[in-house]
């Protein structure tokens, strides 16, 4: 602790002092940093870093460990069983079906989630009177929790819900469409919820990026006779390209681990016979079912989810670099 006497007599910059702290060299550090005893940061970081280590780092290492054991959801850590859990997954058609569902989910959601919020942001970027009101209004879907949104959309998409009733009144269909029960229908309905709820959030990210686009580029393009659509593709899109790839990565990670929308729209079942189950739903049901569940198999699925996320992340980075080079 830096006491008053220390302050009155600051340590001289002798060679010994610099040797003692070779990495911090002393010169570029301010006084407070030089007076701080070595144990002080440890004391301050004990709790925060401890929590991060206990509830993020340790569980991550533990999930890898658990995936090689036959742990049960009820108690204990189980015995080492080698690659058995991974073999089980590889031979489980339900698992591959869940992977397929999650991947299809990402493939459908990502392009739309990259493009639509950008259009919305372009609509909201100009500072016209009352724009703050519209920005806040448009943000309401994003602050509504997924549970609330899913319950509201269930009311629209039910067999006798608003959408089916309207379509039947218009004589477009004679039988209600199975929005919440059909294998792909359920997934597409959930995608609609994801998109609708995520739009305003990514819109705000794009608004931030748009405000950094040099306005003289727009003026120059307008002078050259470029219309609004031309300006969008030649000025706006290149200007927010970095944000577009960030949104792409974020939404891809989000889609692969999708859970709540599909779970709630199907009232927990994942569709008839669970055939619309996503990867996260599979992990939960395999890992935690009190009678048939195996924490080890669920953990193997979790490791797969992590590797899938990591793989997609690295792949998108590579694609980005390639696009930059061209």
């Amino acid at each position, binding site marked *: 602790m830096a006491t008053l006497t220390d302050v009155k007599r600051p340590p001289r910059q002798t060679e010994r002092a610099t040797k003692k*702290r070779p990495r911090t060299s002393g010169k570029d550090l301010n*006084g*407070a*940093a*030089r*007076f*701080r005893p070595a144990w*002080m*940061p*440890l004391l*301050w*970081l004990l*709790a*925060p*870093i401890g*929590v*991060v*280590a206990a*509830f993020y780092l340790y*569980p991550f290492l533990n999930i890898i460990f*658990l995936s090689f054991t036959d742990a049960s959801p009820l108690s204990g850590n189980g015995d080492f069983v080698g690659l058995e859990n991974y073999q089980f997954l590889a031979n489980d058609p339900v698992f591959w079906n869940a992977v397929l569902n999650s991947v299809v989910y990402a493939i459908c959601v990502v392009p739309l989630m990259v493009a639509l919020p950008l259009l919305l942001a372009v609509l909201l*970027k*100009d500072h*016209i009177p009352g724009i703050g009101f519209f920005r806040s*209004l*448009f943000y*309401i*879907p*994003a*602050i*509504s*929790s*997924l*549970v*609330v949104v899913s319950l*509201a959309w269930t*009311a629209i998409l039910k067999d*006798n819900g*608003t959408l089916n009733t309207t379509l039947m009144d218009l004589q477009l269909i004679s039988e209600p469409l199975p929005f919440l029960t059909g294998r792909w229908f359920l997934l597409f309905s959930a995608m609609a919820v994801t998109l*609708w709820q995520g739009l305003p*959030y990514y819109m705000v*990210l794009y608004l*931030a990026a748009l*405000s950094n686009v040099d*306005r003289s580029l*727009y*003026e120059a393009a307008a002078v050259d006779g470029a219309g609004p659509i031309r300006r969008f593709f030649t000025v706006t899109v290149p200007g927010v390209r970095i*944000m577009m790839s*960030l949104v792409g990565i*974020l939404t891809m990670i989000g889609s692969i*681990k999708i859970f*709540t929308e599909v779970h709630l729209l199907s009232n927990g079942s994942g569709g008839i016979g669970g055939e619309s189950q996503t990867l*996260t739903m599979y*992990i*939960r049901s395999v890992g*935690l079912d009190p009678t048939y569940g195996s924490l080890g198999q669920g953990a193997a699925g*979790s490791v797969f*989810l992590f590797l899938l*996320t990591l793989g997609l*992340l690295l792949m998108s980075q590579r694609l980005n670099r390639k696009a930059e080079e061209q």
Partner: protein
Amino acid sequence: MTTAALTSRRRRGRAGFGTVQGKALALRYVILSVVGVLLLGPLLLPLMAAFKAPGEPVFGQGASLIPREWSLDAFVQLFTQTEIVRFIGNSLIVCGLTVVSALILSTVGGYMLSRRGWKGRGIALVVVLSTMIFPFESIMLSLYAQVRDLGLYDTLPGIWLPMMLGPFHLLLMRAAFLGIADEVEDAALLDGAGEWHRFWYIFLPQVKGSLTVVGLTAFIAAWQDYLWPLLITQSSGNTTMMLGIAQLQSSFGTDYRVVLAGAIAALVPIAIVFFFTQKYFFKGVEEGGLKF
């Protein structure tokens, strides 16, 4: 994903390029209104059915979008026939714990992570950053086993424990403290202020905005979380609000008005908070890339 911090508030001031006037302005308002209806309709229209009187068809042929007769009957049922008060109470306890722990831990940790010149700073930062690459969904089973082994399965502290501090919050507070000049700290040191005094009287008062962002996002994340409480609770005694209203779908499937009334009850507190603290919401989104 702190790379989302691509903008500063100062720059936003001159964000408008090209002024919109006359007919173009009127057209812009028309488009904005249409898009607004499309965005809010799918949420507000179904929720309106919660105000229908008993006996009025909620769905199907002959049901109107807007209630023919406005009634609070569904809300009366919600509060008398379900344990909604308990759900709200449980959620508020979890939210309160989360906000307090997130604020304390993120400021204390963020402060020291922002100070330079001590051994282990690099390692500490790497530990925090490395947690951002794996999704919660891939560690939820081991968290479950951990909380179960602590004997906290199906308890409110069990819900709170894994979300007591988000790495985002630590990094957000670190960024806020980084913005404070070294000279300020040195001046306080010369006046004889120890580490704690400098933190409490010099640093903390300068980051009130970021503190609000951390508190708000912690509250909303805890209020809206669904997957983790679903895994770790079993009895209705520890059901949170989100779980509770989702369960109404099964217990009140025949009277969907009550389900929608529950959805409104879950939405209204957040909507009120949002309208009073909008600028912090957007600050959180832009600077921290925080998604609620």
